[in-house]
């Protein structure tokens, strides 16, 4: 089958040491349920889901605990049955070391499912199926965690030429897709068949790097069976050359179809769509078994004695997982993802989430601290390996100098942060760090600018409104007091200095009257909740007032005197 497929290349790429053997010798094992599950509500790209449970509530395995909020969002479910002990801020598996809202569940050990029911997608409209998948929490499991239901939309033409299944898995150490394909090829392809129907895709290409012959064989066998059943030879398994980052969605699409999907455009508009094999498996589970996404395969590798793949419930602390693999004593860090694109975890107790394809244990020996950074010598090595055909050193130069506009002109946002450039740079410049920095700066600025623009608009609108109200009031007032004012003006003009114009004087009189009114009002008005107070309350209020007065006194020198 694979022989028929014409392959295209992609520019650049590198061949780091793969380190994949260690974790593929043993089959997938089910990781034990931990004593506490910390399930972050926000696990996918898009808006954070709203919590649906309260502390003390009992939840069942697969029960929705966070519902999708907004257009781009995806639901979250309890990974096992138990009691919600808290809905609180917990440390996230994120480099920032910041916390976010999590549902903490104490498992009861019964592992009791909700009532499971397969979803008949053939009887449902595509929108219904998409809503179902959104509520089943299915997101891309390749690491980008983009809600899958949003990608299952055939786009303008209503049909698709090619559905690409991504089993390339190019990052060193990571083998979760590899073992999944070896062991559950049928289920993956069942998911693929569903996706193919939803997208009305002509063919399905499964791209697998040629360093995984077992996975290729397993998938080919499964594909033969599916093709025989459907009789149209639509699913083809293609071994692609092993070169990092062949598993990048855009790179794989290019290798298999020759199509380059530009940054920021939808690949469906180019007639292709790409899903990770794990996602296909999750779709099979959600639709044919009725099980929402509550676990995934995670590779535990790196500085451990027994690297292996585990089926892990979301919310399981990485620490527990690592403990299963005999970590070596010199381990000094936990990385989520692979060594090329992975993220450093702030601590090892952070939970496994939907994005966790690999828990990589690091040490100084395995990942030595990078040598000191030298100036860029413009050798062009980075441009040679950049799979996005960028000029990394130019982007680096401008990001470093904080000239973000220029960095953007050199297509900074086309960078997929694959790390190839930093991998080859002879000056050992942490290039990707500079891009991450520049990108987040630019994003923040855009957000700030939008906020400022909105504030400006609202302020201008308010000025307009005030102006209008003033005019209306003035007109009314003028009508009312026209006669009286004339009289007063005449009197003043006679009695006082001619320097004061009648209008001014009238104004003064008005202001004085207003001030008088305000004064009396101030005396009259009591805040609602300060009437009918008990003596104690009154005493308390008095004390508070005294404190406030004190604070106001203290604050005075700092405050600008407006009037």
């Amino acid at each position, binding site marked *: 089958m694979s022989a028929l497929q014409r392959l295209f290349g992609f520019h650049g790429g590198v061949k780091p040491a793969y380190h994949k053997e260690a974790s593929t010798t043993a089959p997938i094992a089910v990781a034990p349920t931990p004593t506490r599950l910390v399930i972050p509500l926000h696990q996918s790209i898009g808006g954070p889901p709203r919590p649906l449970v309260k502390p003390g509530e009992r939840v069942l395995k697969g029960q929705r605990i966070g519902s999708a909020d907004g257009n781009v969002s995806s639901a979250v479910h309890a990974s096992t049955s138990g009691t919600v002990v808290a809905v609180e801020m917990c440390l996230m598996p994120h480099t920032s070391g910041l916390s976010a809202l999590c549902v903490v569940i104490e498992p009861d050990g019964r592992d009791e499912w909700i009532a499971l029911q397969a979803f008949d997608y053939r009887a449902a409209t595509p929108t219904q199926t998409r809503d179902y998948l959104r509520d089943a929490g299915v997101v891309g499991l390749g690491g980008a965690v983009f809600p899958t239901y949003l990608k299952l939309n055939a786009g303008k033409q209503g049909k698709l030429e090619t559905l690409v299944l991504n089993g390339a898995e190019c990052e060193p150490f990571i083998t979760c897709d590899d073992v999944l394909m070896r062991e559950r090829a049928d289920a993956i392809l069942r998911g693929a068949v569903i996706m193919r129907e939803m997208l009305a895709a002509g063919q399905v290409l499964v791209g697998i790097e040629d360093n995984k012959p077992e996975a290729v064989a397993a998938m080919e066998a499964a594909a033969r069976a599916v093709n025989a059943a459907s009789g149209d030879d639509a699913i083809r398994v293609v071994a692609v050359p092993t070169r990092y980052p062949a598993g990048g969605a855009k790179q794989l699409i290019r290798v298999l179809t020759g199509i380059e999907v530009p940054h920021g455009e939808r690949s469906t508009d180019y007639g292709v769509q790409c899903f990770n094999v794990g996602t296909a498996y999750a779709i099979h589970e959600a639709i044919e078994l009725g099980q929402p996404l509550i676990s995934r395969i995670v590779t535990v590798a790196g500085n451990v004695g027994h690297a292996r793949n585990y089926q892990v419930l979301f919310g399981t602390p990485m620490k527990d997982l690592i403990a299963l693999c005999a970590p070596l004593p010199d381990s000094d860090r936990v990385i989520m993802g692979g060594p090329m694109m992975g993220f450093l975890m702030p601590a090892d107790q952070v939970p496994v989430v939907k994005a966790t394809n690999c828990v990589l244990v690091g040490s100084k020996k395995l990942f030595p601290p990078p040598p*000191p950074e030298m100036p860029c010598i413009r050798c062009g090595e980075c441009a040679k390996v950049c799979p996005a055909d960028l000029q990394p050193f130019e982007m680096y130069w401008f990001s470093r100098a904080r000239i973000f506009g220029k960095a953007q002109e050199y297509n900074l946002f086309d960078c997929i942060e694959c790390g190839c450039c930093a991998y080859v740079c002879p000056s050992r410049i*942490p290039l990707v760090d500079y891009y991450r920095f520049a990108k987040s700066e630019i994003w923040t600025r855009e957000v700030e600018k939008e906020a400022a623009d909105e504030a*400006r608009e609202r*302020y201008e609108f308010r000025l307009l409104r005030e102006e209008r109200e003033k005019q209306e009031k003035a007109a009314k007032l003028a009508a009312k007091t026209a006669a009286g004012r004339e009289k007063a003006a005449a009197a003043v003009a006679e009695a006082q200095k001619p320097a004061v114009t009648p209008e001014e004087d009238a104004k003064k009189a008005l202001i004085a009257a207003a001030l008088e009114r305000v004064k009396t009002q101030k005396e009259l008005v009591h805040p*609602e909740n300060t009437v009918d107070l008990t003596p104690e309350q009154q005493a308390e209020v008095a004390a508070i007032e005294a404190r406030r007065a004190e604070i106001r006194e203290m604050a005075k020198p700092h405050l600008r005197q407006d009037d």
Partner: protein
Amino acid sequence: MLEALLVMALGAIVLGAALGYAAVRFRVEGDPLVEKIDAILPQTQCGQCGFPGCKPYAQAIAKGEAEINQCPPGGEEGIHKLADLLGREFKPLSAEHGIEKPKSVALINEQTCIGCTLCIQACPVDAIVGAAKQMHTVVASQCTGCELCLPPCPVDCITMEPLAESVETWKWKYPVVRLHPVQKETA
């Protein structure tokens, strides 16, 4: 000698004419200066600069009536941008106008609020909603953090809450240049 001088002079004249022509012909019909300055100002509308809003301050800067270092919310970065735009010298933020604070939003203590509407009137961007004698609430996403609603509140129920960094708003830091051990002695 004379010839050379003539050639040079001729060259100068031709080039000058070309430049002059280009300046007229290709003049950028850009935003007026006030707009450009206003685009840099943070639109907090707090009045700390001594003007009743960002636009008036922008106008004052454009007319040369105000210094560029009077806007505390804009901070040093804002002053740098203004200095770049106007070709003026950077000055540190003038202390009499305030200090740069972390961005915060107003929070009304809903237990204490008496519904007097005074803060609604004070808010320059209409970010407070509520009706007379009803509890008021700040629409956090629209609040600019100008603090103008604090003084009018008769029961002092409004506090400024600094905006906490979240996973979504977290920014990657500028990469630290990794120093070689030997440099430590000299540094």
